[in-house]
């Protein structure tokens, strides 16, 4: 447990030493802030719902940017050899990396709490949907990040890691639309996999355990495969 936390801390600090964290956070806040004010201006309604819907799309782009270096860089510089020869279990390394970037995401989301704060000051929004909406965003963020981490474990090249993550996330994102075009069982499968479908209820104030399970399962599966990928490094030498 100590190792996981040590690695997570190191990773988080490392993000703030490089421009990546600042640039990505700034862009994220810029876009979401813009959308927030636009939505507010158009609808005059004290609700976070439309904004929550857009977070997911923004994540599609920023998650690959955040996760691309996590394991790819370690392979490139050779620090992975140090990590894998230290008394650190492979899963501790992966979980530590995940925790580090997940905490970064939480920090970014924490800053967006100004939006509901503004709503509370100016109007009378429903509290429930805001809580569940953030829960949905966090769960979705975790799932996205775990996929990004998996992509990063598969290559030494950060760009490829980013592109791979983006493509996988995009496919999951479009899964719903694909499902609408396909018939029968496969169509059902696509729709079942769809991220949009499992995310929609959260901003409405509905916490469906099936949806929670969906995101947790994706996160766990991606992390599991990442551990396998790291262990496989040893066999390849």
């Amino acid at each position, binding site marked *: 447990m100590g190792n996981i936390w040590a690695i997570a801390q190191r990773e988080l600090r490392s993000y703030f*030493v490089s421009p990546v964290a600042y640039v990505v956070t700034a862009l994220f806040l810029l876009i979401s802030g813009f959308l927030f004010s636009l939505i507010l201006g158009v609808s005059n309604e004290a609700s976070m719902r439309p904004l929550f819907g857009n977070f997911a799309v923004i994540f599609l782009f920023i998650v690959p940017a955040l996760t691309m270096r996590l394991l790819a860089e370690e392979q490139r510089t050779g620090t992975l050899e140090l990590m894998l020869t230290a008394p650190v279990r492979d899963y501790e390394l992966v979980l530590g990396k995940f925790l580090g970037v997940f905490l970064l995401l939480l920090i970014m989301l924490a800053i967006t709490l100004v939006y509901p704060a503004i709503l509370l000051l100016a109007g009378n929004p429903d509290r429930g949907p805001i809580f569940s909406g953030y829960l949905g965003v966090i769960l979705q963020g975790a799932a996205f990040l775990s996929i990004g981490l998996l992509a990063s474990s598969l290559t030494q090249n950060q760009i490829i890691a980013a592109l791979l993550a983006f493509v996988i996330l995009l496919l999951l994102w479009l899964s719903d639309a694909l499902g609408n075009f396909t018939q029968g069982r496969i169509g059902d499968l696509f729709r079942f996999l769809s991220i949009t479908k499992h995310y929609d209820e959260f901003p409405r104030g509905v916490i469906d355990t099936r949806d929670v399970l969906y995101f947790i399962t994706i996160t766990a599966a991606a992390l599991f495969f990442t551990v396998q990928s790291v262990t496989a490094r040893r066999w390849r030498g």
Partner: protein
Amino acid sequence: MIKVEQLTKYYGPRAAIRDLNFEVAKGEILGFLGPNGAGKTTTMRILTGYIPPTSGSASVAGYNTFTQSLEARRHIGYLPESVPLYTEMEVSSYLDFMARIRGVPGRNRRARVNYAMEALHLTHVRDRIIGKLSKGYRQRVGIAQALVADPDVLILDEPTIGLDPMQIIETRNLIKALAGSHTVILSTHILPEVSATCSRVLIINDGEIAAEDTPENLTRRLRGAETLRLEVRGPRDEVARRLRSLPRVVEVAVTDGGDGRHAYTVVCELGADLRERLAATVVQEGWGLLELRPVEYSLEEIFLRIITEEEAAAPEAVPV
């Protein structure tokens, strides 16, 4: 402390190392010597639990490096050849992090980090970002990282590459000082380093052990003869003939000098100390004895002899 049995590693059809057998006792410093691609790094990577062997086994501190990898790793400090570092971190933060994951408990950490920095003369750069350090300093951070958890076993892959002569000497002294309380394996191309620091040498060539002994024994074993060098002022052929006629002289080779002076390489039987006899002979004949000294094989020559003899003796490789 370290035991390697029939260790073999294949990368595809190619054997990087084949049936390696050796042991390292507690407190020893063992030198791995070998040309590039001999298998030194592969062996070290198996010992540190980074990669599994194809067959055979290795154990460190009694723990098998494959089946009990985690336990074995707790006893090892490792510096890989490429000296990988987290270049965005400060020296002290990096060493603290490495101490943490290598299992140094919180209360000891600062002391251990300070010790490692002092031992490698890094204290004045403790707050510097590693990426901004010169190669020599980075090398030292790498060694410090291996030391920081006070491991029983240190495995150092080319630890003095990139250091200036002063730093090399300091590092060697540091490694020598660690013997006894620590067991060290270091690999190197720098042959004098091996004689300077190691109690035992393993020469690896082409995935197999070509020779294993103390540096002194190796020198002695491969000498095969006592060789003396003389410089004499006198008639060339006569001097050579006279020297050759002495008992226990095997061979005399002459190199022409100028001005009536010539250099003679006299090869004597092993164990024969003919220095006084040769000196007396030259003087009695009335020639000028200008120089008389024994010729030592350097480790370089031994190394090259072993490697080239190995290659000459090796049969044609059979494709697997």
